[in-house]
């Protein structure tokens, strides 16, 4: 499995816009989590009566729960296949806060369930912690009143040595969300909202003590691990991290996704350490106490 690039994700977003406007588009060679979450959420909002894929992709789409996520009845019988080479976590709708931890746990397990003992518990915990934060953000920002809950899914390719997790919501987006709070509105003036939202301490709800940990963690882990790809896109503003380098930009209008998409893909044999990201966070001013344990 080739590593996914931010350009591939954006090409797909352009194709998705064609699909929504024209009713059909050429299918990609493979479906990955970022295809599935964006397609399913966009179609759920549009409310089609019918959805089909090329024959070669029908079984996979069915196993990943695309029709259910869109709100349709799956037209094919889902066959359980031997999963020696890949491991899947089907589309999960984040319908209540209590499920956030469960979904994060299911997503994280995908990458590690094929690992020979001993399990790299620190990496597994790091992915779980990052996903818990991202999934809670996604739940908090989704348009729940419109029945447009956030979606998440994951896949690991054991032979290819990679895993990808994608999470999406159709909320108002990072810029609008940050601009509605007087304490963060100034931060995004003249700046890329996707870039700003990944900085430590930036949250649209700072008065509640929120610090936007999820995006900060995802960016920090990706920057510390070459080979990892982190992609954040919110209503046309994007930040990507590849080869440890972050870059933020505005995507062309035909590639805009009307929601917030997070894609995290990494080589599963590389240890991920959330503690190194914690250690990079700024200390509180004043008395620093190391003697809590």
């Amino acid at each position, binding site marked *: 499995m080739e590593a996914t690039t931010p350009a591939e994700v954006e090409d797909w977003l352009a194709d998705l816009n064609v699909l929504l406007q024209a009713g059909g588009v050429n299918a990609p060679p493979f479906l990955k989590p970022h295809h599935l979450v964006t397609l399913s959420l966009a179609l759920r909002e549009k409310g089609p009566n019918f959805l089909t894929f090329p024959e070669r992709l029908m079984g996979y789409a069915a196993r990943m729960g695309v029709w259910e996520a869109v709100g349709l009845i799956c037209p094919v019988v889902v066959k359980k296949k031997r999963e020696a080479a890949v491991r899947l976590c089907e589309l999960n709708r984040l319908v209540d806060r209590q499920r*956030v931890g469960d979904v994060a746990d299911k997503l994280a397990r995908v990458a590690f369930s094929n690992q020979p003992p001993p399990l790299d518990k620190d990496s597994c*915990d790091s992915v779980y*912690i990052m996903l818990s*934060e991202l999934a809670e953000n996604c739940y908090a920002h989704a348009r729940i009143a419109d029945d447009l809950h956030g979606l998440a899914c994951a896949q690991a390719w054991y032979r290819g040595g990679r895993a990808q997790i994608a999470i999406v919501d159709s909320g108002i987006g990072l810029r609008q969300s940050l601009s509605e709070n007087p304490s963060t509105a100034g931060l995004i003036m003249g700046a890329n909202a996707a870039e700003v939202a990944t900085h430590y301490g930036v949250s649209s709800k700072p008065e509640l*003590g929120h610090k936007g940990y999820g995006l900060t963690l995802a960016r920090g882990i990706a920057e510390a691990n070459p080979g990892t790809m982190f992609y954040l896109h919110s209503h046309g503003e994007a930040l990507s991290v590849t080869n440890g380098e972050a870059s933020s930009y505005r995507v062309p209008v035909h590639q805009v996704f009307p929601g917030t998409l997070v894609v995290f893909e990494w080589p599963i044999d590389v240890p991920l350490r*959330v*503690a190194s990201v*914690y250690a990079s966070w700024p200390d509180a001013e004043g008395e620093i106490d190391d003697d809590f344990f």
Partner: protein
Amino acid sequence: MMTSSRFVVCQEADKLATRSAGRELCAQLISRLQDSLHVTLDFQGVSLTPSFADEFLGMTIQRLGRDQFKRRVTMVNVSESAKVLIRHILNARARQASVLESDPTLIRQHA
């Protein structure tokens, strides 16, 4: 009042990932501290998220203050990576608490 009690984090709540879960556990810990002079928090088997840790431990230290927290709460079975997170959160919240306490212009309240 009991002298000491043990608070096994993974037994007190099913889900330990979210802010709301941390808030609930903070309330339970504060309640326990009303009955016990000292509480040992056991983190065996717990993967701490920053949001959960902030609501659970950060808000507890904000309520108690740094000195009382250190005197009355002991944390055991904490992984090395969780220690880095907890130190960060406790220092940040203790700092906030001391700023609040030293500001004579504020009307203060606790949830």
